């Protein structure tokens, strides 16, 4: 089963014909055609600017994922740098992460409306980072339950000002317009099940790893595991919680099976547990190198010049995030 899923490719943006799309999953082409039709119709009746649906891949029946770019937020990418997903049940839809702006959230919402007319009942955020939550406000009109780890509200609450300022700067006023922090209304403190009709989602709050508010989601019907930013592929992992905590989480997750996993940054669908190996290797290398520097009495600045650089070729955005990761790892590991 797994080899087939790995071959799936996302439909290219804006509905341009993709030779792979039709052969792999004919229904996708239909989705794109419908999307085009809706967009054109919107123009014809000159409604206020209507969002075009974002490209999504159906990685398993009723499970759709949009793949973000391996980039830092910019005016050019409008914040489209993380994966956003939705799961369609017989009664309701759950959104899992909403991308990096109100506009992108609206495009995700259009992609959902192309697939189903079921109500959007849940908007789940896997963690606090702006590229996963700033599309939330789009869904206010659906009056969903906003769901997150029980520490998500605090994390967002105290960072909102900084997140808003930084993202407005990176995306520019136009792309950022209307984006805001929407706090969760359902806080997950222990394993919780959400019913979408004919399928249930299992939500598990984890200990500090990528952040202190990581929440993972399993769609039981297809055995799809949404890992949020606990899994990076291609895009270098970023540590904003605890490197030892993250490694421990990966060890535990490695023991369990899943038909497929959806990373926060990376391809829409990956095989488990193979998908975690590069990330595990990166984090373990950084931890080992940093520990050695600490043992040798080296300083933080010295460590940032050498630790983990053997991983440089393996990751996109290494220059942007690696030294920051070493810094975080050093500040944590020197206490162990």
């Amino acid at each position: 089963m797994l080899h087939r899923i790995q071959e799936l490719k996302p439909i290219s943006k804006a509905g341009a014909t993709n030779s792979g799309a039709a052969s792999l999953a004919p229904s996708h082409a239909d989705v794109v055609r419908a999307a085009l039709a809706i967009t054109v119709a919107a123009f014809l009746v000159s409604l206020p600017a209507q969002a075009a649906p974002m490209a999504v891949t159906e990685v398993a029946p009723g499970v759709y994922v949009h793949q973000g770019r391996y980039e830092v937020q910019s005016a050019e990418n409008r914040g489209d740098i993380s994966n956003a997903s939705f799961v369609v049940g017989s009664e309701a839809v759950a959104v899992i992460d909403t991308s990096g702006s109100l506009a992108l959230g609206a495009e995700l919402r259009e992609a959902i409306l192309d697939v189903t007319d079921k109500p959007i009942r849940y908007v789940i955020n896997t963690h606090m980072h702006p590229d996963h939550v700033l599309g939330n406000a789009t869904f206010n009109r659906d009056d969903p339950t906003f769901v997150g780890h029980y520490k998500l509200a605090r994390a967002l609450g105290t960072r909102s000002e900084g997140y808003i300022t930084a993202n407005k700067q990176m995306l520019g006023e136009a792309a950022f317009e209307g984006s805001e922090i929407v706090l969760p209304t359902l806080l997950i403190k222990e394993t919780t099940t959400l019913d979408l009709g004919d399928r249930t989602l299992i939500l598990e709050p984890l200990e500090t790893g990528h952040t202190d508010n990581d929440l993972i989601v399993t769609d039981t019907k297809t055995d799809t595991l949404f890992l949020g930013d606990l899994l990076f592929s291609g895009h270098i992992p970023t540590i904003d919680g605890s490197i030892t905590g993250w490694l421990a989480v990966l060890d535990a997750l490695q023991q369990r099976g899943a038909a497929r996993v959806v990373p926060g940054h990376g391809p829409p669908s990956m095989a488990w547990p193979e998908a975690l190996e590069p990330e595990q290797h990166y984090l373990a290398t950084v931890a080992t190198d940093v520990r050695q520097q600490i043992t040798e009495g080296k300083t933080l600045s010295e460590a940032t010049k050498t630790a983990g650089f053997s991983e440089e070729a393996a990751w996109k955005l290494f220059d942007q995030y690696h030294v920051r990761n070493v810094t975080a790892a050093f500040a944590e590991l020197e206490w162990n």
Partner: protein
Amino acid sequence: MHTNQLGRLAILALCMLAFMPGASADDVEMWPILKEQTFGDRPIHEEDGTVVLEAPQKVEDAAIVPLTVRIPPSVKGKLKSLTVFIDNNPDPKVATLTFGPAAGSGGERSFSTRVRVDNFSHARAILELDDGSLHMATKFLTAAGGCAAMQAKDPDADTAGMGKTIVRTFSPALESSPIWAGQVMIRHPNNNGMQLDINTAKFIPARYVREMTVERDGDLVFKLDATFSISTNPNFRFTFAKGEENNLNVSIVDTDGAVFEGRSERSGS
């Protein structure tokens, strides 16, 4: 003391003004104000090699920016004080060290810590020698984290372990060196009181390390007055004059008046 605090409030107000819409940090040139307030009209020798400030060329994490101040071995004699500023931080004065007899009078002396940087800003180290002369080194920091940079990654873990203090000494590679190195780490969230929690519409109360005294074998190495510009879990590296036992005793006081104490393990090497 009282006037000092008033002055600090004034600076805080000025900085907040700088962050208000319509104004930018660039509109207010902080250094002349800081200089006047701290050193009056005393002359300051700039970049004369008496003191060297090291900072990363590109700041990666504005919440943990390593700064090192070095005093080259060519500078002989005792030191009076060292003050570190980050001009555009909400409270620009990062720390002042007042040196004691065990700070030493030769060798390469240094002081390192990690700071929060709120916006693009100059960082400055001003060293006061025993003769009262002032010497300054400056670096420009291209870091901006906004208030988010002031945030701890795992506040529960930091609060749970609060007060844990580790003190280490490092004997020199050369037996003949007059200088040893020491390190103090303390688990403390160092909250700056500037984060509005939109859940409660309240500011998280400020609580940070404000004073640290380091002694070697009972003699003062330095007394440090600090602000919340020091990163979460404050970390200091410094040098001290070689003594008999080379044991460090450290006493730390935070803004709530809590006292934390630490003592170095006997150096193994």
